[in-house]
């Protein structure tokens, strides 16, 4: 048991994020657009080196509980990005600037894991009419700017129901 613990600790210090290592190797090979042993070796070196260099900024490993829900979330967000683009394009072209109602929202967060909050903030920026701007110092609230939102409470509810609830099921 002790030996096993020491072994995992050693593995952690060399490979702080194994998934990120695999992803980096994959991206490196895809970037080259051709597969060769040399590319693979260079990819492995980079894939080990970058997580080591950035390990102090990212001490914990994210724990994904449900990969199926993560895929569903990804597809929902892609769909929302398309509608967001059309919606914002319509506002830019046709709305009268003086009739826009830009608002600041304060979204209380139920999420606690930093990876989940990062994903939520990124999603909020990419989806209809909202940009995430800041996190409160204790990490419990997200500051969001809306381009045109007559009903702030409904916007907060939409963010919480559509995205935060799904992230809760994936991460926490």
């Amino acid at each position: 048991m002790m030996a096993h613990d020491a072994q995992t600790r050693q593995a952690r210090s060399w490979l702080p994020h194994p998934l990120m290592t695999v992803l980096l190797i994959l991206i490196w090979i895809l970037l080259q657009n051709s597969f060769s042993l040399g590319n693979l070796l260079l990819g492995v070196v980079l894939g080990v080196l970058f997580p080591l260099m950035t390990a102090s900024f990212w001490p914990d490993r994210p724990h994904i509980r449900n990969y199926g829900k993560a895929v569903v979330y990804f597809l929902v967000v892609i769909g929302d990005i398309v509608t967001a683009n059309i919606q914002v394009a319509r506002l830019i072209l046709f709305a009268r600037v003086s009739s826009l109602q830009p608002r600041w929202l304060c979204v209380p967060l139920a999420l606690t894991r930093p990876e989940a909050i990062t994903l939520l903030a990124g999603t909020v920026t990419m989806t209809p009419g909202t940009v995430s701007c800041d996190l409160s110092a204790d990490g419990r609230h997200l500051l969001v700017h809306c381009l045109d939102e007559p009903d702030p409470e409904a916007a907060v509810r939409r963010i919480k129901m559509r995205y935060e609830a799904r992230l809760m099921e994936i991460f926490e």
Partner: protein
Amino acid sequence: MSILAEAIVSALIIIGAVFLLVGSWGMIRMPELMTRLHAPTKATTLGVGGTLLASIAYFLAAEGVFSIHELLISMFLFLSAPITAHFLAKAYMHSRLKAGELPRPDGKGWSTYDKPAGVESGEAPPRDTL
């Protein structure tokens, strides 16, 4: 390349270009920085996305190879756009806004103005908590 493939590629390029144009027009049209920020973060992702899809379709139809580079570009774009927007918004908060002009959260204030939990003085937190 068949006429159908050419039509699809052209349509994708035009859709992408229209969204890019609208995104740039939004930067001119919107009255202040925060509303201006919405145009490039959204309208342009579909613009670049459409152009990249056109590129994938072209290489698939003309040379019969599936090019994966475009998917990587759009992935990098989805990762970097929210972070850039976040930095711009924070810079704006530092230079033009005061904490009183924003909705105040319960508990600690916004991290642009307030110190994180457990830090009383203006010094950086000790290294081992990072």
